[in-house]
């Protein structure tokens, strides 16, 4: 029987213990390697304000997560791109065609790729339910292995391990434009009914999105690369802008603790908005200390 999930449960405590061990080991290894330790600062005082801001924001997020555990219903604004996930999967199911999920060019250490994998996990649960083929061409071998494990578990959790086909999650190439060519070729040949473009995208973003558009697939895109957003907005049906990509897994799973962190994110935005408004008003009255402060922090 599962107990209640808390973020202060044993992994965090054990993680703290490991943290001490790792630091101890590393200090020892460093002492052996370095003959002389330079008299350097342990803390970069130039980054003190950034550190405090990150700390304040992190504390807000953690507080909101705690608060969400109480079970109180949280209001989360509607995100059309995520509302359309069901529509896209339903359309593919009705048409008897596959769904293509593209994770972009980011490696497994890229936060946008992790966010994309979290969305994929939710999508895989639904495709397992509907028995819709899910095709995932990967650009990074580590990402491919993690994704295979994630999708397999998602199918297992839905009670459909038989529907999982490992061959549908495959490595294509690490080369940027060869990857774009490969995915475009598959899109044109297989004509998936829905295409998800979620993760880190670069110059290949529009090549992929326009090909998806040309085959009439419903496309849901999202990226952390703000330069690629206009391309996605022009070529895709729905686009997750900015932090919406990171909010997606919480939004789709509706798990209270994840939703709590979204609320924290919103409070962070309110703080920044407040600082901007106050800064503008002070500037209008010729008071410049706040803008000077932010310029120095930068």
């Amino acid at each position, binding site marked *: 029987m599962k107990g209640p999930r808390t973020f202060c449960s044993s992994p965090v405590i054990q993680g703290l213990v490991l*943290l001490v061990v790792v630091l101890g080991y*590393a200090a020892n290894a460093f002492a052996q390697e370095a003959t002389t330790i330079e008299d350097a600062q342990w803390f*970069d005082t130039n*980054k003190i304000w950034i550190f405090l801001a990150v700390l304040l924001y992190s504390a807000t997020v953690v507080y909101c997560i705690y608060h969400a555990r109480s079970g109180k219903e949280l209001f989360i604004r509607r995100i059309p791109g995520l509302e359309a996930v069901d529509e896209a999967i339903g359309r593919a199911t009705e048409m008897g065609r596959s769904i293509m999920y593209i994770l972009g060019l980011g490696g497994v250490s890229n936060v946008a790729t992790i966010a994309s994998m979290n969305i994929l996990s939710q999508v*895989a649960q639904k495709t397992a339910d509907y028995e819709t083929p899910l095709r995932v061409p990967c650009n990074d071998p580590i990402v491919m292995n993690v994704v295979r494990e994630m999708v397999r578990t998602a199918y297992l959790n839905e009670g459909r391990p038989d529907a999982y086909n490992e061959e549908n999650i495959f490595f294509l190439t690490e080369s940027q434009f060869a990857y774009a060519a490969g995915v475009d070729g598959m899109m044109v040949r297989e004509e998936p009914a829905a295409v998800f473009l979620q993760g880190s995208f670069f110059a290949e973003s529009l090549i992929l999105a326009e090909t998806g558009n040309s085959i009439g697939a419903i496309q849901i895109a999202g990226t952390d690369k703000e330069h690629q957003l206009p391309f996605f907005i022009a070529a895709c049906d729905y686009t997750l802008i900015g932090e919406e990509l990171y909010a997606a897994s919480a939004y789709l799973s509706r798990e209270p603790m994840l939703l709590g962190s979204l609320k924290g994110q919103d409070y962070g935005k309110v703080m920044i908005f407040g600082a901007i408004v106050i800064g503008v008003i002070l500037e209008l009255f010729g008071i410049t200390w706040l803008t000077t402060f932010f310029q120095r922090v930068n």
Partner: protein
Amino acid sequence: MRRQVPLILCFAFGIVMALTEFSPHRFSQWLNKEVIDWTLVIGPFALVLAIATLIQTHWTRIRRRSEYWQYSFLVFIGMIVMVVIGIPLGQRHPVFVWLFRYVQVPMDATMFSLLAFFIASAAYRAFRARTLEATLLLAAALIVMIGNAPVGDLIWNTIIPFGDNLPSAARQWILDNPNLSARRGIILGISLGVISQSIRIILGIERSYLGGVEGD
């Protein structure tokens, strides 16, 4: 235990790596570099798995005579040629360099050049002035395009007697003010999202990447 160990490692290394960003001390910089080097070790192992998958996928397609199975032959030909030349002769051998320079680079360039046509077709759809937003987008795009082309200023200065180089000045104003403000707003949102997601991962709340879905 299968879940506990990755979560503990994730928490410990997540905190350590975050702290090293704020410490200029030689020890913390060394630690940061060392941990990043560890991650590089994982790459080659995963690459072996990936190549095995690639071979398996295309071999299966050829064996089953799936649709377009002929393309899989091309994958094998490309792979074998590069391996047979690259491994014994090295990456600096003229044949290997020739293959790279005159086969792979032109193919990459071909894909990249398609972007110009895709931009035109996407812009055509996006700039249809059906709504107020699309009309504003069209107007801004026209100003930026005219301002970007040197002939824009030339035509303006020849025809209009006032406002020297107005198109390029207007373009710069659009890029520096509305465009930059919107970009910064998006960047701020992304940054908050990244921190929030990192907190969820470090604290073990977000676990899907471990190979399971939320709630299990």
